[in-house]
């Protein structure tokens, strides 16, 4: 089985990075195929990396900092909106429940007239109450939807 690693491989790579060579390491390099390969690749990659580091400058730190702050704000805003989103979902669930209940009640009303459980309530008051309830549900849903939209647009803007 062929040897896949030399114990001095890292030492060779480190010497190439720092430029600190010992004569002993130099003679080892001539006798070890693995270290010779390591040296060839290290030289090649280090030259490439040095050229890249000299030729290219990263974007200013301030720019990256501001971008990160924006991302942070966006995440914070999303977290803050979670309860509102939950309330909205709850609101829709309640609206659906009320709608089903109303349908069921109206069905019972049409079948049995005033004889069933709605009979003690005068029809005018019942309709007024239903109208107000529906209006409030719709207004609440609209408000939640609008506030969600505003929050999203604020997050995009910031």
């Amino acid at each position, binding site marked *: 089985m062929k040897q896949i690693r030399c114990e001095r491989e890292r030492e060779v790579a480190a010497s190439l990075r720092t430029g600190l060579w010992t004569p002993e390491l130099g003679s080892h390099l001539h006798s070890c195929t693995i270290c010779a390969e*390591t040296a060839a690749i290290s030289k090649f*990659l280090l030259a490439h990396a040095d050229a890249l580091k000299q030729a*290219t400058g990263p*974007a200013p*730190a301030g720019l*990256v*900092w501001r971008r*990160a*702050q924006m991302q942070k704000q966006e995440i914070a805003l999303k977290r803050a909106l979670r309860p509102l989103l939950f309330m909205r979902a709850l609101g829709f669930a309640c609206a659906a429940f009320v709608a089903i209940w109303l349908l069921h009640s109206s069905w019972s009303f049409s079948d049995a007239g005033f004889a069933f459980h709605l009979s003690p309530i005068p029809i005018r008051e019942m309709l007024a109450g239903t109208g107000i309830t529906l209006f409030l549900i719709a207004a609440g849903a609209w408000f939640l939807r609008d506030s969600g939209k505003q929050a999203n647009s604020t997050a995009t803007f910031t």
Partner: protein
Amino acid sequence: MTVYKTGIVAARLTLPGEEDAAITEQEFQALYDATSRSILAYLIGMTGHRDIAEDLLQETYCRFLVRQPAAMEAEETRRYLFRIATNLLRDRWRKGIDWQEPVSDTATTSPDMNSRIDVQRTMQALKPRERELLWLAYVEGMNHTEIAETIGITSMSVRLLLFRARRKAAALLRPTCDPERSEEHETDSL
């Protein structure tokens, strides 16, 4: 020993009314100045494209600032940044985007035409993971454990994969030798 202050420490130290940022802009500036060039070179080396590397570099630091890991030593922070950068590269490669031909600005990075062609040919011929391994081992000087931590594989795998990558790269740097044949030969010999 430099220790960069991050989230958990800051959360304990910060009093109401004080600045709530986990790492201050000045601290970030120092960290960025110390590490960004190496990471940018790594990203260009891996993607072959300066613009893409710039975007990935910014995203790397943004993720670092957003996550705010516990206080780390400078060297550990550097490795953590390399890890984020490597994960971003992997996301890119998963989408099927690999090495791209350098545009004119990166073409001027090498001193002469021959070495530029060598760089392009060699890096393009290597697999993304091979490029990562060689770079982290020979340019950044990481040991097998550190590379394993950065790339997300075991130390034993690093050892074997690095050996294969080294043989392949060595063959590529010798124009007369066919890297595929050399690789097959080495795999057989294992």
